[in-house]
Protein backbone atom coordinates (compact mmCIF):
# COMPACT_ATOMS: atom_id res chain seq x y z
CA UNK A 1 0.00 0.00 0.00
CA UNK A 2 2.78 2.39 0.96
CA UNK A 3 4.79 1.61 -2.17
CA UNK A 4 1.79 2.14 -4.45
CA UNK A 5 1.07 5.46 -2.74
CA UNK A 6 4.68 6.69 -3.00
CA UNK A 7 4.81 5.66 -6.64
CA UNK A 8 1.69 7.68 -7.54
CA UNK A 9 2.75 10.56 -5.29
CA UNK A 10 6.05 10.88 -7.13
CA UNK A 11 4.41 10.82 -10.55
CA UNK A 12 1.94 13.55 -9.59
CA UNK A 13 4.70 15.62 -7.93
CA UNK A 14 6.92 15.38 -11.01
CA UNK A 15 4.11 16.42 -13.37
CA UNK A 16 3.09 19.26 -11.00
CA UNK A 17 6.60 20.74 -11.13
CA UNK A 18 6.57 20.76 -14.93
CA UNK A 19 3.09 22.23 -15.37
CA UNK A 20 3.40 24.89 -12.65
CA UNK A 21 6.74 26.05 -14.02
CA UNK A 22 5.28 26.28 -17.50
CA UNK A 23 2.36 28.34 -16.18
CA UNK A 24 4.24 30.76 -13.90
CA UNK A 25 8.00 30.43 -14.28
CA UNK A 26 8.05 29.57 -10.56
CA UNK A 27 7.98 26.18 -8.86
CA UNK A 28 5.49 23.99 -7.00
CA UNK A 29 5.87 20.63 -5.29
CA UNK A 30 4.17 18.20 -2.89
CA UNK A 31 5.51 17.51 0.61
CA UNK A 32 4.47 14.65 2.88
CA UNK A 33 3.95 15.95 6.43
CA UNK A 34 5.35 12.81 8.11
CA UNK A 35 7.01 10.33 5.74
CA UNK A 36 7.16 7.74 8.55
CA UNK A 37 3.42 7.75 9.02
CA UNK A 38 1.95 8.68 5.65
CA UNK A 39 -1.61 7.46 6.15
CA UNK A 40 -2.31 9.52 9.24
CA UNK A 41 -0.53 12.68 8.22
CA UNK A 42 -1.25 15.15 5.45
CA UNK A 43 0.22 16.47 2.23
CA UNK A 44 1.29 20.07 1.66
CA UNK A 45 0.91 21.68 -1.77
CA UNK A 46 3.88 24.07 -1.80
CA UNK A 47 4.27 26.95 -4.26
CA UNK A 48 6.93 29.52 -4.99
CA UNK A 49 5.80 32.24 -7.38
CA UNK A 50 8.56 34.17 -9.21
CA UNK A 51 10.52 36.50 -6.89
CA UNK A 52 8.49 35.39 -3.86
CA UNK A 53 9.07 33.26 -0.78
CA UNK A 54 7.79 29.65 -0.82
CA UNK A 55 4.29 29.35 0.61
CA UNK A 56 1.69 26.60 1.14
CA UNK A 57 -1.20 26.98 -1.35
CA UNK A 58 -3.75 27.88 1.35
CA UNK A 59 -2.05 31.22 2.14
CA UNK A 60 -1.64 32.57 -1.37
CA UNK A 61 -3.94 34.99 -3.20
CA UNK A 62 -7.17 34.08 -5.06
CA UNK A 63 -5.56 34.14 -8.50
CA UNK A 64 -2.50 32.25 -7.26
CA UNK A 65 -4.77 29.56 -5.78
CA UNK A 66 -6.54 29.21 -9.14
CA UNK A 67 -3.26 28.62 -10.98
CA UNK A 68 -2.02 26.16 -8.32
CA UNK A 69 -5.31 24.22 -8.29
CA UNK A 70 -5.30 23.80 -12.08
CA UNK A 71 -1.65 22.73 -12.14
CA UNK A 72 -2.45 20.12 -9.49
CA UNK A 73 -5.59 18.85 -11.27
CA UNK A 74 -3.76 18.51 -14.58
CA UNK A 75 -0.88 16.71 -12.85
CA UNK A 76 -3.27 14.04 -11.54
CA UNK A 77 -3.84 13.17 -15.20
CA UNK A 78 -0.42 11.44 -15.18
CA UNK A 79 -1.76 8.83 -12.77
CA UNK A 80 -5.50 8.87 -13.51
CA UNK A 81 -6.10 10.01 -17.12
CA UNK A 82 -9.76 11.11 -17.44
CA UNK A 83 -10.98 11.22 -21.05
CA UNK A 84 -12.54 14.71 -20.74
CA UNK A 85 -12.59 17.84 -18.54
CA UNK A 86 -15.59 20.03 -17.64
CA UNK A 87 -14.47 23.51 -16.52
CA UNK A 88 -16.96 26.28 -15.65
CA UNK A 89 -15.46 29.82 -15.56
CA UNK A 90 -12.16 28.68 -13.99
CA UNK A 91 -10.53 31.88 -15.32
CA UNK A 92 -12.81 34.41 -13.57
CA UNK A 93 -10.19 35.69 -11.08
CA UNK A 94 -7.09 35.58 -13.31
CA UNK A 95 -5.23 38.69 -14.47
CA UNK A 96 -4.46 39.17 -18.16
CA UNK A 97 -1.00 37.55 -18.02
CA UNK A 98 -2.07 34.42 -16.14
CA UNK A 99 -5.11 34.12 -18.39
CA UNK A 100 -2.98 34.09 -21.54
CA UNK A 101 -0.66 31.46 -20.09
CA UNK A 102 -3.53 29.23 -18.92
CA UNK A 103 -5.31 29.53 -22.27
CA UNK A 104 -2.12 28.48 -24.05
CA UNK A 105 -1.65 25.49 -21.73
CA UNK A 106 -5.25 24.29 -22.13
CA UNK A 107 -5.02 24.58 -25.91
CA UNK A 108 -1.99 22.26 -25.77
CA UNK A 109 -3.62 19.86 -23.32
CA UNK A 110 -6.71 19.63 -25.48
CA UNK A 111 -4.64 17.67 -27.96
CA UNK A 112 -4.49 14.84 -25.38
CA UNK A 113 -7.91 15.10 -23.74
CA UNK A 114 -11.18 16.71 -24.70
CA UNK A 115 -11.97 19.90 -22.78
CA UNK A 116 -15.42 21.51 -22.43
CA UNK A 117 -14.93 24.94 -20.95
CA UNK A 118 -17.35 27.77 -20.09
CA UNK A 119 -15.75 31.22 -20.19
CA UNK A 120 -16.58 34.90 -20.62
CA UNK A 121 -13.00 35.96 -21.41
CA UNK A 122 -11.89 36.68 -24.98
CA UNK A 123 -8.30 35.31 -24.82
CA UNK A 124 -9.74 31.91 -23.86
CA UNK A 125 -12.43 32.01 -26.58
CA UNK A 126 -9.71 32.87 -29.10
CA UNK A 127 -7.96 29.54 -28.54
CA UNK A 128 -11.01 27.31 -28.97
CA UNK A 129 -11.19 24.60 -31.60
CA UNK A 130 -15.00 24.87 -31.45
CA UNK A 131 -17.14 27.66 -30.03
CA UNK A 132 -20.74 27.37 -28.81
CA UNK A 133 -22.68 30.57 -28.19
CA UNK A 134 -25.66 30.34 -25.83
CA UNK A 135 -28.45 32.93 -25.82
CA UNK A 136 -32.06 33.28 -24.60
CA UNK A 137 -35.25 33.52 -26.61
CA UNK A 138 -38.42 33.81 -24.52
CA UNK A 139 -36.73 32.31 -21.42
CA UNK A 140 -35.55 29.28 -23.41
CA UNK A 141 -31.83 28.68 -23.93
CA UNK A 142 -30.56 28.23 -27.48
CA UNK A 143 -27.12 27.31 -28.76
CA UNK A 144 -25.32 28.16 -32.01
CA UNK A 145 -21.97 26.81 -33.10
CA UNK A 146 -19.36 29.24 -34.42
CA UNK A 147 -16.29 28.62 -36.51
CA UNK A 148 -13.20 29.77 -34.57
CA UNK A 149 -11.85 33.06 -35.90
CA UNK A 150 -15.36 34.41 -36.51
CA UNK A 151 -15.83 37.44 -34.27
CA UNK A 152 -18.38 36.79 -31.55
CA UNK A 153 -20.22 39.71 -30.07
CA UNK A 154 -22.05 38.72 -26.89
CA UNK A 155 -25.57 39.83 -27.81
CA UNK A 156 -27.46 42.14 -25.53
CA UNK A 157 -30.90 43.64 -25.85
Amino acid at each position, binding site marked *: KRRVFINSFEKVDKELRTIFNKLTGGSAWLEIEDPNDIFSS*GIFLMTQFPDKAPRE*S*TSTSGGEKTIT*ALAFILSIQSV*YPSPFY*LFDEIDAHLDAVNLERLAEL*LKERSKRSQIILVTLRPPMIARASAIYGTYNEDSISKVVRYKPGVEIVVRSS
Partner: protein
Amino acid sequence: TLIKRLEIHNFKSFESKRVSLQLDGGLNVITGPNGSGKSNIIDSIRFCLGENSPKALRVSRLSSLISDTGPKTDGRSAKVTMLFDNSRRAIPVDSDTVSISRELKENGESTYFLNGKRVQKGSLSEILDLALISSEGLNVIPQGMVTRISELLPDEKRRLIESII
Protein backbone atom coordinates in the same frame (compact mmCIF):
# COMPACT_ATOMS: atom_id res chain seq x y z
CA THR B 1 -13.24 8.09 -25.44
CA LEU B 2 -14.38 11.51 -26.29
CA ILE B 3 -17.88 12.93 -26.37
CA LYS B 4 -19.01 13.31 -30.00
CA ARG B 5 -22.53 14.65 -29.42
CA LEU B 6 -24.75 15.90 -26.63
CA GLU B 7 -28.55 16.04 -26.94
CA ILE B 8 -30.64 17.89 -24.39
CA HIS B 9 -34.46 17.57 -24.17
CA ASN B 10 -36.58 19.56 -21.76
CA PHE B 11 -33.74 19.84 -19.20
CA LYS B 12 -33.59 23.09 -17.20
CA SER B 13 -33.66 26.08 -19.56
CA PHE B 14 -33.51 23.89 -22.69
CA GLU B 15 -36.94 23.36 -24.20
CA SER B 16 -38.58 20.15 -25.28
CA LYS B 17 -37.44 20.54 -28.89
CA ARG B 18 -34.16 18.67 -28.97
CA VAL B 19 -30.97 20.75 -28.65
CA SER B 20 -27.97 18.99 -30.11
CA LEU B 21 -24.26 19.93 -29.83
CA GLN B 22 -21.66 18.29 -32.08
CA LEU B 23 -18.53 18.38 -29.91
CA ASP B 24 -14.93 18.67 -31.07
CA GLY B 25 -12.11 16.52 -29.74
CA GLY B 26 -10.10 19.55 -28.61
CA LEU B 27 -10.98 22.75 -26.73
CA ASN B 28 -14.77 23.31 -26.81
CA VAL B 29 -15.57 26.75 -25.50
CA ILE B 30 -19.12 27.69 -24.39
CA THR B 31 -19.76 31.41 -24.03
CA GLY B 32 -22.74 33.79 -23.87
CA PRO B 33 -24.60 36.26 -21.63
CA ASN B 34 -25.37 35.65 -17.95
CA GLY B 35 -28.32 33.31 -17.51
CA SER B 36 -28.23 31.92 -21.06
CA GLY B 37 -27.70 28.24 -20.23
CA LYS B 38 -23.91 27.70 -20.13
CA SER B 39 -23.75 26.03 -16.72
CA ASN B 40 -26.94 24.10 -17.53
CA ILE B 41 -25.01 22.40 -20.36
CA ILE B 42 -22.36 21.29 -17.86
CA ASP B 43 -25.15 20.09 -15.52
CA SER B 44 -26.73 18.10 -18.36
CA ILE B 45 -23.51 16.10 -18.82
CA ARG B 46 -23.19 15.37 -15.10
CA PHE B 47 -26.86 14.38 -15.00
CA CYS B 48 -26.49 11.98 -17.92
CA LEU B 49 -23.48 10.31 -16.28
CA GLY B 50 -25.51 9.58 -13.15
CA GLU B 51 -25.08 12.58 -10.85
CA ASN B 52 -27.89 12.23 -8.30
CA SER B 53 -27.23 15.04 -5.85
CA PRO B 54 -29.71 17.93 -6.37
CA LYS B 55 -27.17 20.32 -4.80
CA ALA B 56 -24.48 19.32 -7.33
CA LEU B 57 -27.01 20.05 -10.11
CA ARG B 58 -27.99 23.33 -8.41
CA VAL B 59 -31.66 22.46 -7.74
CA SER B 60 -33.66 21.83 -4.57
CA ARG B 61 -34.97 18.45 -5.78
CA LEU B 62 -34.35 16.36 -8.90
CA SER B 63 -37.76 16.95 -10.45
CA SER B 64 -36.85 20.68 -10.76
CA LEU B 65 -34.44 19.65 -13.51
CA ILE B 66 -37.41 19.25 -15.85
CA SER B 67 -37.83 22.49 -17.75
CA ASP B 68 -40.57 24.73 -16.39
CA THR B 69 -40.71 26.86 -19.52
CA GLY B 70 -42.97 24.52 -21.49
CA PRO B 71 -46.69 23.78 -21.13
CA LYS B 72 -47.49 22.37 -17.67
CA THR B 73 -48.91 19.13 -19.04
CA ASP B 74 -48.73 15.84 -17.20
CA GLY B 75 -46.14 13.24 -17.84
CA ARG B 76 -43.29 15.73 -18.48
CA SER B 77 -39.76 14.38 -18.51
CA ALA B 78 -36.20 15.57 -19.10
CA LYS B 79 -33.80 13.55 -21.23
CA VAL B 80 -30.10 13.89 -21.99
CA THR B 81 -28.15 11.70 -24.43
CA MET B 82 -24.36 11.53 -24.88
CA LEU B 83 -22.71 9.87 -27.86
CA PHE B 84 -19.14 8.67 -27.23
CA ASP B 85 -16.47 7.78 -29.80
CA ASN B 86 -15.55 4.23 -28.78
CA SER B 87 -13.24 3.29 -31.66
CA ARG B 88 -10.51 2.39 -29.13
CA ARG B 89 -13.01 0.27 -27.13
CA ALA B 90 -12.19 2.09 -23.88
CA ILE B 91 -15.84 1.50 -22.94
CA PRO B 92 -16.18 -2.32 -22.72
CA VAL B 93 -18.95 -2.43 -25.33
CA ASP B 94 -18.43 -3.74 -28.85
CA SER B 95 -19.44 -0.77 -30.98
CA ASP B 96 -17.60 2.18 -32.56
CA THR B 97 -19.92 4.65 -30.91
CA VAL B 98 -21.68 4.26 -27.60
CA SER B 99 -24.75 6.25 -26.64
CA ILE B 100 -25.76 6.81 -23.04
CA SER B 101 -29.11 8.37 -22.10
CA ARG B 102 -30.90 9.25 -18.93
CA GLU B 103 -34.56 10.15 -18.69
CA LEU B 104 -36.09 11.69 -15.56
CA LYS B 105 -39.87 11.70 -14.90
CA GLU B 106 -41.77 14.11 -12.69
CA ASN B 107 -41.93 11.55 -9.90
CA GLY B 108 -38.14 11.77 -9.67
CA GLU B 109 -37.53 8.34 -11.19
CA SER B 110 -34.68 7.94 -13.69
CA THR B 111 -34.27 5.45 -16.51
CA TYR B 112 -30.87 4.80 -18.11
CA PHE B 113 -30.19 3.56 -21.66
CA LEU B 114 -26.99 2.13 -23.19
CA ASN B 115 -27.05 2.03 -27.00
CA GLY B 116 -30.79 2.36 -26.86
CA LYS B 117 -31.39 -0.57 -24.45
CA ARG B 118 -32.55 0.00 -20.90
CA VAL B 119 -29.86 -0.68 -18.33
CA GLN B 120 -29.59 -0.58 -14.54
CA LYS B 121 -27.74 2.44 -13.09
CA GLY B 122 -25.43 0.09 -11.18
CA SER B 123 -24.17 -1.81 -14.23
CA LEU B 124 -23.86 1.42 -16.24
CA SER B 125 -21.66 2.93 -13.48
CA GLU B 126 -19.41 -0.13 -13.54
CA ILE B 127 -18.98 0.15 -17.31
CA LEU B 128 -18.24 3.88 -17.11
CA ASP B 129 -15.75 3.38 -14.25
CA LEU B 130 -13.75 0.97 -16.42
CA ALA B 131 -13.49 3.68 -19.08
CA LEU B 132 -12.50 6.24 -16.41
CA ILE B 133 -15.62 8.25 -17.26
CA SER B 134 -16.91 10.03 -14.18
CA SER B 135 -19.00 13.10 -13.45
CA GLU B 136 -17.63 13.78 -10.00
CA GLY B 137 -13.86 13.37 -10.37
CA LEU B 138 -11.25 16.10 -10.31
CA ASN B 139 -11.91 16.56 -14.03
CA VAL B 140 -15.11 18.54 -13.20
CA ILE B 141 -14.82 22.08 -11.78
CA PRO B 142 -18.21 23.77 -11.20
CA GLN B 143 -18.59 27.56 -11.40
CA GLY B 144 -16.94 29.35 -8.46
CA MET B 145 -15.15 26.22 -7.14
CA VAL B 146 -11.72 26.36 -8.81
CA THR B 147 -9.78 27.61 -5.73
CA ARG B 148 -11.21 24.86 -3.45
CA ILE B 149 -8.46 22.35 -4.27
CA SER B 150 -5.79 24.81 -3.11
CA GLU B 151 -7.73 25.42 0.11
CA LEU B 152 -7.99 21.74 1.15
CA LEU B 153 -6.40 20.78 4.49
CA PRO B 154 -3.28 18.58 4.40
CA ASP B 155 -5.31 15.49 5.37
CA GLU B 156 -7.82 16.12 2.62
CA LYS B 157 -5.00 16.45 0.09
CA ARG B 158 -3.58 13.09 1.17
CA ARG B 159 -6.97 11.42 0.84
CA LEU B 160 -7.27 12.90 -2.63
CA ILE B 161 -4.05 11.23 -3.75
CA GLU B 162 -5.15 7.97 -2.14
CA SER B 163 -8.49 8.08 -3.99
CA ILE B 164 -6.94 8.21 -7.44
CA ILE B 165 -4.72 5.18 -7.01
